[in-house]
């Protein structure tokens, strides 16, 4: 066996005075291995990733443990020493290359600077071209003279990877390198990383919150929760037989288009830095908690040769349950609630205008969930905005109960406005930061349904209960809510109008998977209980599979394919759909009976 090239032991990173952000992190990695570091937002992934390079943001320090890269100790090095090591021995690929690449340095010089700084003696011009070539970027002079903003998102990320590889480091840390990219581009970057793994002389740390992505490339997986590693082991076995209840929860939350299933979220929310309980951090959300769990932080214990778990009751952890979604109704015979007929929508800019929807027709029956998928910029949001009267169509008709709707919300009748409600993608701007939850939810009740203050207040309580928010949340302000909570409030606000149809524009794409699972679950429940029709926009086929009845595939403003979810996902007819499906990562847990279990003593 080859020597491990990265060895982390007992790493603790904390605020200068006080709370730890991450604690007791121990990892080991050999060349050619890819470690997937997963966990929900705020669990400390980035903090660990940067600590591997000896870097901490201002106010944060590494206060214990050791990090060794190729035998060289990083913790305790002075700045000069660190500068020498960074980029040479271990390098970093940032999450968002659009901001992390210096906007005023040309592509070639971005790479060349690494060679300059680390004194690589070579024909630098040729070497730069070669390095760009390694990540499939053109190395010609014209390309090297471009500025970062003249590259596509995928190219920017490749460039960032090229910069990281420039000096032949032994370890490369990639912090969510594909998070901002669409699936197709993401698939290409992952391919790239896969090739690096194959080449075998570099070890990779791949940070992501997306288990499906990690599963597709990692050889080992470390799951983080609240600043600690809770489970670590070979990728296959962690995914198939998670031993930590949190890992299990994560895996159960991941939607999958290959095997459409009912998603189960993890109840509760993660604790923040400083607010962690004295015992197991996950205990408050854990189904198999016993009083012992709350007494002391459980140690990371070896459960077999290659795996460790931080749970005293790991044996109790059940196997991932895969509830396949029941058969999805093929046709609902009821008269359509909403009918879109040859919709055309444009964005008029200076001179030229962009066609966001060319000729889009579809129907939504009462109680039905129709999903709209397509890559970024295909026109999904524009269509949604047309439905609720925020964007005036350039042609075609939108009918509600067979009656045409006016282009602008203002010109629609109150009944019409009430019937169709929208929930937006970004939970951070969909609520007015100066209005309390109660105020936000009560307003549509008063303005669209003419109820008094008091009746509205009473109804707010029921609505919050509906979206499974505790009543005390009513007096909170959006700034005091997590993303998932905000999205629920936004849904409650939409429900407050007593709509018949909900337009959801990527309502879960900014959320962690476990939170996403909970929100999707909520939507399913609302459909069931209220007979609500849902028009659900997403770019994630897994989500489509887990919630929708029918699906429309959109490409550049045109509907490429339409049909039931099962039909479209299992037997796609258009090329474009096929490409989307191929690119979408999947956990690929067998639909029947669940993954094979190794031990369950």
């Amino acid at each position, binding site marked *: 066996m080859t020597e491990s090239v990265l060895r982390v032991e007992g790493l603790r990173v904390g605020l200068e005075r006080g709370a730890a952000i991450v604690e007791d992190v121990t990892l080991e990695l050999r060349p050619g291995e890819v470690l997937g570091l997963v966990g929900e937002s705020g669990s400390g992934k980035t903090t660990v990733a940067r600590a591997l390079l000896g870097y901490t943001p201002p106010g944060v320090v590494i206060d214990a443990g050791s990090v060794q890269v190729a035998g060289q100790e990083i913790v305790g090095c002075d700045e000069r020493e660190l500068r020498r090591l960074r980029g040479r021995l271990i390098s970093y690929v940032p999450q968002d290359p659009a901001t992390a690449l210096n906007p005023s340095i040309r592509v070639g010089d971005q790479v060349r600077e690494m060679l300059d700084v680390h004194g690589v003696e070579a024909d630098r011009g040729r070497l730069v071209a070669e390095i760009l070539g390694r990540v499939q970027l053109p190395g010609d002079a014209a390309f090297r003279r471009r500025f970062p903003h003249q590259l596509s998102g995928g190219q920017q990320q490749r460039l960032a990877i090229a910069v990281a590889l420039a000096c032949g480091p032994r370890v490369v840390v990639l912090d969510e390198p594909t998070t901002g990219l669409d699936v197709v581009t993401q698939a290409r970057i992952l391919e790239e990383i896969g090739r690096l793994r194959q080449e075998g002389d570099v070890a990779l740390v791949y940070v992501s919150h997306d288990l499906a992505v990690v599963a597709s490339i990692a050889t080992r997986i470390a799951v983080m929760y609240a600043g600690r590693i809770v489970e670590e082991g070979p990728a296959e076995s962690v995914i198939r037989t998670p031993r930590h209840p949190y890992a299990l929860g994560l895996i159960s939350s991941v939607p999958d288009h290959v095997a459409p299933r009912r998603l189960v979220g993890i109840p509760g929310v993660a604790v923040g830095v400083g607010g962690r309980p004295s015992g197991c951090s996950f205990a408050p959300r854990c189904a198999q908690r016993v009083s012992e769990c709350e007494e002391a932080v459980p140690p990371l214990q070896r459960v077999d040769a290659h795996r460790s778990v931080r749970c005293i009751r790991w044996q109790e952890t059940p196997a991932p349950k895969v509830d396949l979604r029941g058969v999805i109704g093929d046709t609902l015979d009821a008269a359509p609630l909403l009918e879109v007929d040859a919709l055309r929508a444009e964005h008029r800019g200076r001179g030229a205008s962009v066609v966001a929807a060319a000729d889009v027709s579809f129907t939504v029956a009462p109680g039905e969930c129709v999903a709209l998928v397509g890559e970024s910029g295909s026109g999904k949001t524009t269509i949604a905005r047309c439905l609720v009267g925020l964007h005036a169509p350039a042609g075609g008709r939108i009918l509600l109960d067979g009656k045409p709707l006016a282009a602008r919300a203002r010109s629609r009748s109150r009944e019409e406005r009430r019937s169709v*409600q929208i929930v*937006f993608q970004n939970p951070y*701007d969909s*609520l007015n930061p100066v209005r309390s939850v109660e105020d936000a939810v009560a307003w549509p009740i008063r303005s669209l349904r003419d109820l008094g203050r008091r009746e509205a207040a009473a109804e707010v309580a029921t609505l919050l209960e509906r979206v499974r928010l505790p009543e005390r949340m009513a007096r909170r302000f959006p*700034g005091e809510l997590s993303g998932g909570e905000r999205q629920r409030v936004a849904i409650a606000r939409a429900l407050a*109008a007593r709509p018949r149809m909900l337009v959801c524009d990527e309502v879960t794409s900014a959320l962690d998977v476990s939170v996403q699972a909970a929100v999707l679950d909520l939507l399913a429940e609302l459909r069931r209980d209220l007979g609500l029709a849902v028009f659900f926009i997403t770019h994630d086929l897994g989500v489509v599979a887990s919630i929708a009845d029918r699906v429309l595939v959109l490409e550049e403003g045109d509907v490429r394919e339409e049909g039931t979810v099962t039909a479209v996902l299992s037997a796609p007819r258009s090329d474009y759909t096929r490409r989307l499906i191929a690119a979408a990562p999947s956990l690929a847990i067998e639909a029947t009976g669940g993954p094979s279990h190794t031990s369950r003593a």
Partner: protein
Amino acid sequence: MIAVAQARGGARRLQFLRAWSARIGLAVFLFVVGVAFLGPYFAPHSPSAEPGIPFSTPSKAYPLGIDYVGEDVLSRVLFGGRTVIIFGALATLLAYAVGGAIGLLAGYSRTLIDPVLMRAMDVLLAFPPILFLLVVATTPRGQGHVALVSAIAVIHMPSIARIVRTAALETSVRGYVEAAVARGDRTHVILRREILPNIWGPVMADAGPRFTVSILLVAAINFLGLGPSPPTADWALMISENRIGITINPWAVVAPALLIAVLTVSLNVVADAIAHSLGKSLDVETLRR
């Protein structure tokens, strides 16, 4: 319940006080404002009575000495803050009211009104402030208080309109505004409920520097001899009036100058802290004037 909600809102608004500099700044600011408004009750002499010998140096009866016409500097200092603060504040408020309305109209309307208004603001922006005041001073009533206050307001107006417009534009594409539009809320309801409360912070973040500039402009135009005649004592005026005697009784200049400096510095410290707590740092546009 409502009380609790309000307390929460209040706490949010007072967040900036976490910085000790903001606390000191606020205390000093309140002190100077207190001097300005309560000072007259403590003044040992009338600000305009019993002329002594001009520019006498400090003595027991006149702790800060005597000014250019023979009045007690201390009493005038105690009397002279009101007008500075009131005129500075009036000009600033007027600028916010008019500039804010223009910015809101331009930012929210998304019609031809927007470019028309903003180009008009650009025209005003093409005047260096002092130049604008000088041009105004040549007009018939150009040297009165009303003219001065409105001229200073006009000087601030374009940049406020720009800031408000940008903030309104930014806010008007937010989900909660779109949701309100889709609900069919009336425009004034949207402005009042959704937009105004959210642009308030960034817009007021530069009120401190603006107030400073207002006061300094009043002082400058008085210095050039083109300001309104002194109503009573006034710090800005005292500086220019007593300038000729600075070598004889420096206090007549230094005391009001110091108070203006302390007033504006403390206000700026507080404004900085507020801006900071709103996640906004003073940028080039803010400091523009």
